C-alpha cells in the first residue's frame, strides 16, 4: 500500500489555483489585445480591455483575500522556506549531486521569487497603462515594453512549470500534491530528501 504524506495545506493550494486562474484569464485576454490576428478575430477591444483590467484587479485582490482569510501563519512559514537557500540548494542549482532538497527544491524557490516579482511588476505596469491612458503624468515610453516583456518571461516559466507538473515522468506526481494535497512517501523521499513531512493523518 502506498503511504501518502501531506505536502500542501488547503491555503497553499487555494493560493496556487487562484494565482493560476487569474494568470490564465489575464494571459488570454491580454493576448487578444496584443496579437493582431486575435485582435481582428475577436474585435470588441473596449470590452476585452475592461475584462483584462478587472481580471488584473481581481487577481491581486483574490490572492490578498486568500492570504488574509487563510492560514496566515502557515503562509509566513512557507515564505521563509522559499526565501532560504541551504548549501544543498546551491549544489542542486549547480547540478552537483547528491543535493537533498526540502519541501521546495531550489528551482521551485527561484520560480516562486520570480513569479512574486512578476506579479508586482505586472500590477505596476498595468496600472501605469491604465492611468497613463487618462493622465500624462503616468505615461512612460517603456511601460508597454515592460508589460510585454513580463508576459514573455512569465509565459516561459509557465511552460516549464506545465512540462514538469504534467509531462515529465519523474516530477509529474507533484501535481497530486497541488490537487489533493498529498504525495507518496516514497516520491517525497526521492525528490525532497531533506524534508521531514508532517506525520500522516
Amino acid at each position: 500500500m502506498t503511504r501518502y504524506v501531506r505536502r500542501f495545506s488547503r491555503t497553499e493550494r487555494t493560493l496556487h489555483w487562484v494565482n493560476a486562474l487569474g494568470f490564465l484569464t489575464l494571459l488570454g485576454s491580454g493576448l487578444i489585445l496584443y496579437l493582431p490576428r486575435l485582435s481582428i478575430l475577436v474585435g470588441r477591444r473596449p470590452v476585452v480591455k475592461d475584462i483584462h483590467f478587472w481580471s488584473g484587479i481581481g487577481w491581486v485582490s483574490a490572492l490578498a483575500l486568500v492570504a488574509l482569510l487563510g492560514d496566515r501563519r502557515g503562509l509566513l512559514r512557507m515564505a521563509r522556506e522559499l526565501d532560504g537557500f541551504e548549501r544543498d540548494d546551491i549544489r542542486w542549482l549547480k547540478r552537483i549531486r547528491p543535493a537533498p532538497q526540502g519541501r521546495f527544491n531550489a528551482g521551485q524557490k527561484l520560480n516562486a521569487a520570480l513569479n512574486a516579482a512578476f506579479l508586482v511588476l505586472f500590477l505596476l505596469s498595468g496600472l501605469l497603462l491604465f492611468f497613463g491612458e487618462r493622465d500624462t503624468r503616468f505615461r512612460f515610453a517603456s511601460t508597454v515594453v515592460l508589460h510585454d516583456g513580463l508576459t514573455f518571461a512569465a509565459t516561459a516559466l509557465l511552460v516549464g512549470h506545465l512540462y514538469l507538473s504534467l509531462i515529465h515522468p519523474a516530477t509529474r506526481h507533484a501535481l497530486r500534491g497541488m490537487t489533493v494535497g498529498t504525495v507518496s512517501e516514497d516520491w517525497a523521499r526521492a525528490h525532497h530528501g531533506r524534508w521531514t513531512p508532517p506525520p500522516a493523518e
Partner: protein
Amino acid sequence: MSVDAPAEPPQPQPRRYGRGVFLATVLGGASSLFWGKSVWGHISSVTNAIPLVPHGGWRIYTVSGSMPTFDRATWRLEIGGLVDKPLSFSYAELRALPRTTQISTFHCVTGWTVPDVHWAGVRLSDIIAQAQPQFDAHALQFVSAERPYVDSLTLQQASLHDVMLAYEMNHKPLAREHGAPVRLVIPEMYGYKNVKWLERINLVPQAEDGYWELLGYDRDAWVGRSNGYTS
C-alpha cells in the same frame, strides 16, 4: 500556544537568496521604465523572427465593438463643410488621383513604433486645394467609419508635405485592421491622429478635440514633443 517546530535539521544558516531574487527583479523591472524601450529596439529584430510575436510591431487598436467593413461598390470619401466645392470620391476615383509614396516610422503614443512603413496614397493638401476651403476654414475634421472616432488637424498641420490619405501599406491595399480602404497618415504625429477607416473630411472653423483628446491626450500630437514626452 503552538510552537513552530524547526522545519529542517540545523545546517549552516540558510542564505536569504529568495528575497534577493525578488527585490532585484522588481527593481530591475521597474527601472526598465526608463531604459526598456531603447534596449527592446535592439532585440526586437530578433523577436520579429518569432511567428507568435506581432509581425513588424503593429498592434491593432480599435475603440468600438467591431471594425468597419469596406464595400467597394458603396464606399465614398466625402469632403465638405466650409468649402466652395464639396467633393465625393468613389474608391476607383480616389485611386485615379495623382499618387504619392513615402517611407516613414509610425509612432504609437503608448510606446511602440514601426519603422520603415511604406505608404502610398494621395497627398492631403492636393485634395483640400481641390475642394477650395472658404476663408473662415482653419481646420480639418476627420471622421472615421468607426464611430465615434474623430480627430482634427489645423490647415497648417494638414499642409505638411508628407500628410497623405493612404490606400496602400507596404505595397498592398490597406488591410481592414489598418483602416481599409483609406487612412490618414501624418508621420510627425502619434498614431491616434492617423485616423483609420476615413470616410469624411469636414473643413471647420477651428480644430476640436478628437476621441483620445477628450480622454486627455494632446491635440497637437507631435512625436517626442507632446503627451508628456520630451526628446
